[in-house]
């Protein structure tokens, strides 16, 4: 089990991770979602023992990474696919990892075959495309057949076929009872590939739950069309709703449900042509949740418009 225990990390004055505290369960794919610069990679680096936490800790089955006797047999990680010596071949890169962790060298060819880079195993990794490097990185993560797998932005650089492959692959790893922890800044990707999602922003925990949990709790909007949108907007604003006038004269209404919007229109004698509740997408939820925590938000632009 992977446990993040009141973890904080400073880089000089910058607080990259701020008191994160959560557990990642086995048997499901857990998405680690947050905007760029929100502390996902830092958290992953601390888990891997690469960066030292300022306070708190990350433990793997109760031990910090540097206490693990044979780390690659317990945790497999793909943090940065290009972090390889470019002049070494893919096979030799994996052989060195296998030797250092007493993993049988025969396992190297198995994982190379599995990720589909066996045909270029003797080529220098410096010439690999990002997609091929990602596959090699996945091979390295699988080398020790670990129970916990970490992937930092794994779909970057993959083609659509590769993305589909990796989604199925995460699911099958989870089905085998492994802990699969995948970071992404793309909510659409997490919506289809993760069972459980942990959302962070500016290094702080925001929320967690299943995709359905996250969208269910979010308040949707109501789309309404009428014969007099200008007057209807006035009426709804008077009822404390937020109203956005769409280009086609439809109104996007927040703060009221569809019954309330319909009743308000009826009371004012306005004919309603369409009345549709809009369910919040995970993307909307994510934008709402992280709006305050974006390092470079668009808030000021919106306020001026």
């Amino acid at each position, binding site marked *: 089990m992977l446990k993040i225990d009141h973890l904080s990390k400073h880089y000089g004055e910058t607080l990259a991770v701020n008191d994160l505290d959560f557990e990642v369960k086995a048997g499901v794919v857990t998405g680690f979602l947050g905007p760029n610069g929100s502390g996902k990679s830092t958290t992953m680096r601390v888990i891997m023992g690469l960066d030292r936490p300022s306070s708190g800790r990350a433990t793997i089955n109760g031990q910090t990474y540097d206490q693990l*006797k*044979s780390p690659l047999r317990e945790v497999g990680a793909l*943090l940065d696919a290009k*972090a*390889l*010596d470019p002049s070494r071949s893919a096979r030799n890169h994996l052989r060195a*990892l296998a*030797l*250092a962790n007493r993993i*049988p060298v025969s396992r190297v060819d198995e994982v190379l075959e599995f990720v589909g880079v066996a045909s270029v195993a003797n080529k220098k990794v410096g010439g690999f495309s990002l997609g091929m490097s990602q596959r090699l990185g996945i091979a390295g993560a699988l080398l020790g057949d670990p129970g916990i797998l970490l992937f930092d932005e794994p779909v970057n650089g993959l083609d659509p076929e590769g993305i589909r492959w990796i989604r199925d692959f995460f699911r099958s790893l989870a089905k085998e009872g492994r802990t699969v922890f995948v970071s992404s800044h793309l909510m659409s990707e997490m919506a289809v590939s993760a069972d459980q999602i942990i959302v962070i922003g500016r290094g702080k925990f925001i929320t967690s739950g299943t995709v359905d949990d996250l969208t269910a709790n979010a308040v949707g909007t109501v789309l309404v069309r009428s014969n007099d949108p200008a007057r209807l907007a006035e009426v709804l604003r008077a009822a404390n709703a937020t109203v956005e006038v769409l280009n086609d004269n439809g109104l996007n209404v927040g703060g009221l449900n569809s019954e309330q919007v319909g009743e308000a229109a009826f009371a004012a004698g306005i004919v309603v042509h369409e009345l549709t509740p809009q369910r919040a997408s995970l993307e909307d939820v994510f934008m709402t949740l992280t709006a305050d925590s974006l390092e470079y938000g668009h808030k000021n632009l919106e306020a001026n418009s």
Partner: protein
Amino acid sequence: MSTSPTLVDTTRAEFLKFRTVRATFIGLITLIVLTIGLAVLITLVIKANWSQRSPVERLAFDPVATSLVGVFFAQFAVGVLGARNITSEYASGAIRTTLAAVPRRVRLVVSKVIVLLVTFFVVGQVVVFCAFEIGQMIYRSGHLPSGTLSNSTDLRAVIMAGIYLTLLTLVGFGLGLILRTTSVTISIYVTLLLIIPIIVNFLPSSWQDHISKYLPSNLGQSMTSPSAISSHSFSWGTATIVLVIYTIVIVGIGTLLLTRRDA
């Protein structure tokens, strides 16, 4: 099967990494060419000009030192190889993969030191013995004074020349651990070996007498010469001890920093 990995396993991994990059072979060839090639070149030149030498010059002639002069050029090749063993990992980011596989950082350093120590001890001894033997062969063919390995001071000078190269490999490695970038490490290494001696030369001679014997290049001269060079230089034994201490301190500081810093 699930026995935990030991120092032997990490050392095997480091040795595999060391011998599977082309830079290692380019560096080793440079080392061989500089040490043996310069021995051939210099001894041939001396042989050709022997007849024009004055009796005083002939008396000052040192057949051992002249055949080992390439060592003081090869010292740059070994320093770069030692430094690159760690700085190239920082340059590519591979250090993070390495530390994920071997999170015990002291053990990682020990493995790297073993690989460098063993390889450069063997290669160092081979090249200095070849340089010496080829040089003496050339001298003998011109009926010049020559040295022999059956003479214990000559033998010692040759062995110490190889050890000097081995220690400087580790000095380069230690500086690389501390400085982490190849270019900065090599600049500092060259400064220590070439620039600081020049600066010391401008100091008052009473200062020089106290300082210059501590310079790495002068330690090398002391280690490889049959007898003490002057009253202000160390004996070969003391010089070796001083250089060993330098090496331990530099690698030690580098190891301490590695265990403290984020990767």
